[in-house]
C-alpha cells in the first residue's frame, strides 16, 4: 500500500511531472517564473488548490456524478472554482498571513489546465481519497519544483549575454526543454519496474 502511494507520489512529482512531461499549467509556468519568490509562492498555491480539487473531485465522483458522468466536466469546473473561492474566503479570515502570500495567485490558477487535469486523471485512474490526495501532493510538489528550478535558472540568465532574439519566451522554452530532458532520468523511479 505505502509502496503504491510512493509510486503515485514520485510518479506525479518527478517521472510524469505535470509541467515537464504532461505540459500542464504552462501558462503560469512561463508567466510567473521570472522571480524566485513569486514562483515558489505560486507553487505553494498550486499545492493548496490541488489538494482542494482532489477532495472536491473525489466527493463529486463518489456522491454526485455516479448517475450522470456526462456532466463531469462542467461540474468539475464549476465546483472547483467555487470551492477554491470559498476556501479562499475562509483562509482570509483564518490565516491572513498565508492568504497574503498565496492570495493573488489563486484566481490565476483556479481554473487552469493543471488543476482540471488533476481532477480528470484522478478520476480516470480510479484513485480513492487517499491516493487522490497523495497524487495532488505529488503533482503540486512537481509544479513547485519545476517552477522554482525554472525561476532560479531564469534569474541567472538575466546576468548573461543571451542573444537578443532569444531573450524572453524562446529562452524559457529552451530552459524548459533541457529541464525536461534532465527529468527523463527519473523514468521508472520507485515504480517497481527497476
Amino acid at each position, binding site marked *: 500500500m505505502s509502496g503504491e502511494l510512493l509510486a503515485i507520489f514520485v510518479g506525479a512529482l518527478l517521472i*510524469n511531472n505535470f509541467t515537464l512531461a504532461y505540459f500542464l499549467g504552462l501558462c503560469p509556468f512561463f508567466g510567473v517564473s521570472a522571480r524566485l519568490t513569486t514562483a515558489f509562492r505560486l507553487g505553494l498555491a498550486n499545492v493548496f488548490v490541488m489538494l482542494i480539487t482532489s477532495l472536491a473531485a473525489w466527493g463529486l465522483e463518489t456522491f454526485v456524478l455516479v448517475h450522470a458522468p456526462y*456532466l463531469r466536466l462542467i461540474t468539475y469546473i464549476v465546483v472547483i472554482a467555487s470551492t477554491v473561492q470559498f476556501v479562499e474566503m475562509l483562509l482570509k479570515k483564518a490565516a491572513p498571513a498565508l492568504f497574503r502570500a498565496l492570495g493573488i495567485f489563486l484566481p490565476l490558477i483556479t481554473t487552469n489546465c493543471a488543476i482540471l487535469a488533476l481532477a480528470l486523471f484522478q478520476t*480516470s485512474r480510479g484513485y480513492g481519497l487517499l491516493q487522490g490526495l497523495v497524487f495532488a501532493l505529488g503533482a503540486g510538489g512537481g509544479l513547485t519544483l519545476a517552477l522554482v528550478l525554472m525561476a532560479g535558472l531564469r534569474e541567472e540568465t538575466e546576468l548573461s549575454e543571451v542573444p537578443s532574439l532569444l531573450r524572453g519566451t524562446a529562452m524559457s522554452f529552451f530552459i524548459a526543454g533541457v529541464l525536461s530532458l534532465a527529468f527523463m532520468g527519473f523514468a521508472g523511479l520507485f515504480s517497481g519496474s527497476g
Partner: protein
Amino acid sequence: MRLPETARLVLTLGIAGTLSGVTIVSTYRLTLPRIQANQAAALERAVLEVLPGGTSMQRLVWGEHGLAPAATGAEGGDSVYGGYDAAGGFVGYAIPAAGAGFQDTIRLIYGYDPGRRRIVGMEVLESRETPGLGDRIFKDPEFVAEFRDLAVEPRVALVKGHGEGPNEVDAITGATISSQAVVRILGQANEAWLPRLPPAAEAPPLPPPQERRPVHPGGERGGPVPGGRAGEGR
C-alpha cells in the same frame, strides 16, 4: 421590466445552466449508441485477438458464487472475459491487467487457455512507453509472438538472449524494462486469476443469443464521459 439585481443574476445563470444541461444531455443521447458500439467493438476485437479461434465473448464477473456471466446480473468486483468459438465451445479466458511500465501504467489484456495452461495471446491496450523503444512491446511482432504459446508454469520469466524454455520470453534489446514490465504484469495477474478460473469444462457457457447484452467495458459505470477513460494523451 426590471428584475431585482440578484434575481437577474440567478436567472441568467439558471437559463445558461439549463440550456447547457439540455445540450449536453441531448448530445449524450445522440452519441451514446455510437460510442458504446465503438467501445464494445474495440473490446471485442481485443478479446478475440488474444483468444485465437474465438468468435464471440462475454464478460465474467468474480463474485460470491465464483465466476458468473455478467449477463446473469452477477455483481462483483473484478472481471475477465470468456471467449467462445463459432460452435459456442469455450476457447479461453481473456484477462485484463495493468501495472507500472517504464514511463507510466501499461494496460494489457491476455488470453489464457486453462486446458493447456498456456497464455495464447497478449495485446497492449494502453501505454505511454517511449515510441521506438518501449512501444515495441506491441509493435515488435517477434515479441508479441512470444505470447502466442507461453507456459505459465512454473512462472512466466524474462530472459536476455534466446530463451529456450516454454515459459521464457526474450527481452527486447533496448527495452528490457518495458519487456520486464509486461512479464511482471502477466505474472501478477496470473497469481490473482489462475486459481480462480475454472477449467475449460466448467467454464460458464455462452448464453443463447437472445439473452446477450452488449458488453460495456468497465461495467455499470461505463459509457462515455468527457475526458474519457481513453487514456491521458501524451
